[in-house]
């Protein structure tokens, strides 16, 4: 197997990291051209371009078995990959659900036919995936799922509505949870379907959010006929697959986010050091300094959580309530970081998130608004505190 750059075949993790770092340092400026250092680097167009470039260069299927065209990299190396991409300032991927969630789910639960049908197009990035979990009445409460798939001959007839579906507006396929059985328990009757987003009866409505952008969608299913061979695993056996799918990304999810957070904090310190207001360098304002200090301690601590979770995952141990602690610490401190950015920006906070004349082309303002969502999505802070108290400390429900 010799697909991809040579660093993939290094024997040591640190040599892998060094090679990757060199590769990124060379590849990103070439691919980005004059978008480098501008907000366009993080626009949807270049995000797709860059992801295609990675896949063309053989940098996909990192964790897949070699037999399926992957590199069989350890979780640690996958984490290093995401970490170094974050450190190099590459744009976020677009098909993160395809690569991060759908592919490992298919590898573990897909039929031979399904693997052959879907995996190569993820590897080449020619099909973008989304994930249909949340519903208007079932946010943090997956058991309340109401979308129904009724088996009629060789199709499932799908009716219902999903919400907060990232990338549904551009996705080719959707990994979707639907209710197929009556079931004694609410979890019993759930199945996973692999749905072609171009089937008749599917309507996608983008949800514009606080930033003015639409990162999410509502998806309506109106008598959509999904071929029966798009069922993943067993009928009514979807709960287990959904839980497993949620776990694949956990071990490498936070590493790049924490690296980015540290970079943001460093940038804020430099911004505050260069901003004079009312006769004082802002970095010398005790309130700014004190928040920077807290954040720097917490970002360091977050890194320890991420490393620990990765280490456990390598041994096959799920993160347990540490997963909730790290989500809370990350999202709440990220909010504080952007709150601090607003304090430092001062009068410039009145500028909109797409105002290119704003500091950092509006990214601070955009991220400030966006972080409001981070304590809500992927389990609200309230849910995660419940989990820690009930599962971690054993407090009564």
């Amino acid at each position, binding site marked *: 197997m010799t697909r991809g750059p040579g660093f993939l075949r290094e024997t040591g993790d640190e040599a892998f990291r060094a090679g990757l770092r060199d590769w990124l340092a060379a590849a990103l400026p070439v691919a980005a051209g004059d978008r480098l250092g501008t907000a366009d680097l993080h626009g949807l167009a270049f995000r797709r371009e860059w992801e295609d470039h990675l896949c063309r260069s053989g940098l996909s299927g990192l964790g897949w078995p070699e037999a399926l065209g992957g590199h069989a990299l350890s979780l640690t190396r996958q984490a290093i990959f995401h970490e170094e991409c974050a450190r190099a300032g590459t744009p976020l991927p677009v098909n993160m659900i395809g690569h991060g969630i759908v592919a490992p789910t298919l590898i573990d639960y897909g039929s031979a036919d399904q693997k052959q049908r879907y995996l190569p197009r993820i590897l080449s990035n020619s099909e973008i995936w989304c994930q249909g979990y949340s519903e208007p009445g079932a946010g943090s409460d997956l058991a309340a799922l109401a979308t129904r798939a009724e088996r009629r001959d060789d199709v499932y007839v799908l009716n219902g509505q999903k919400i907060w579906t990232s990338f549904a507006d551009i996705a080719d396929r959707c990994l979707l949870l639907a209710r197929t059985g009556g079931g004694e328990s609410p979890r019993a009757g759930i199945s996973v379907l692999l749905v072609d987003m171009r089937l008749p009866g599917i309507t996608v409505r983008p949800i514009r959010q606080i930033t003015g952008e639409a990162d999410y969608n509502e998806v309506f299913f109106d008598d959509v006929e999904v071929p029966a061979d798009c069922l993943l695993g067993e009928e009514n056996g979807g709960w287990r697959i959904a839980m497993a799918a949620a776990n694949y990304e956990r071990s490498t999810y936070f590493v790049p986010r924490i690296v980015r957070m540290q970079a943001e904090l460093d940038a804020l310190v430099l911004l505050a050091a260069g901003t004079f207001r009312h006769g004082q360098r802002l970095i010398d*304002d005790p309130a700014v300094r004190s928040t920077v200090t807290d954040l720097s301690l917490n970002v360091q601590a977050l890194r320890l959580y991420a490393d620990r979770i990765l280490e456990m995952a390598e041994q096959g141990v799920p993160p347990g309530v540490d997963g909730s602690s790290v989500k809370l610490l990350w999202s709440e401190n990220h909010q504080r970081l952007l709150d601090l950015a607003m304090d430092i920006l001062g009068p410039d906070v009145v*500028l909109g998130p797409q105002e290119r004349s704003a500091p950092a082309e509006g990214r601070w303002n955009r991220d400030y608004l966006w972080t409001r969502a981070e304590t809500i999505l992927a389990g609200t802070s309230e849910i995660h505190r419940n989990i820690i108290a009930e599962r971690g400390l054993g407090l009564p429900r």
Partner: protein
Amino acid sequence: MLREAVDSALANVVLTPAEPDPQALSRRHWSLAAEMGWTAADIDEAHGGLGLGLAYIADICESAGRHLFCGPFAETAVLLPSVAREVETLSALLPGVAAGDVRVAYAEASIPDGSGGSVSFAPVEHALQATHLAVIEESGGELRVLITDLDGAEISPLQSMDLSVSVARVVLPDPSRCPPITLGAEATRRVLSAMHIAVGADLLGVGEAALARTVEHVSSRKQFGRPIGAFQALKHRLADVHTALRTARLALAHGVGDGATFQDTRAARTLAADAAMRATATAIQLHGGSGFSWELDLHLFLKRARRLNARTGGTNRLRASAGNDYIERTIAARA
């Protein structure tokens, strides 16, 4: 109560994200403000005003916050009159303010000494609706104020975070026409006091509106078979928001009363800003997914609170100067 009257006047003219035309709304709000006499409230009768004083201003501003009033009310009807009370030459503008014909754009920026060439300010709030511009610069306990009409000014719109306000870059071709005024320490405190009350009351209104929407939401939205407002952790967060807003209200009421000091108005604004930031952030959090959707108007309150909170250096700075004053006073009293 004046507050109820202002509330009911504004209740039908509301900014919604579905109809996000703050410019049009601003015109309607402004005619309302002029018709109802709000722009005349803080101007004495000799200059065509009603001379109603700061308590009335606070009521109007609170409603303005609650209803996302689109227009430079505090800048025009509070800041300009309060500066004019210190600088006689500006009082010629007051009848126009009272009548609603003057609208003041606002920026906090350093003011160049204006020997030659044009000068540019950005971001300037409300510039697209304004007839005049006020730029303020505070340092060492003194205010420098530049007040000028916008004749001949070049105004280029910028994207605004807060939909209830327009933002622009303003280039003054000949700033030597309007030399900045420097106010002494006492005058500065009087002018800032008036703005502390106006901005503090707006923030209180913003916070109250965010809390009211949240209470309504958590009382009706169900999860795990119960209204989410029955969950104790949510209750406690909202109880703390209530207490913060209530505290700010008491401080503002005290700040507009007889014998209130500069320290009192500054404390009131600080408490109001903190309460509003907390109320709006909590509102978004407790609304869950819908809290950060563009369709719901919640984000408008967060953005307005954030904008007003950034003024004159933000609450960090207001708070620090309150603390410094208290500490120095206490040490001096002992010495």
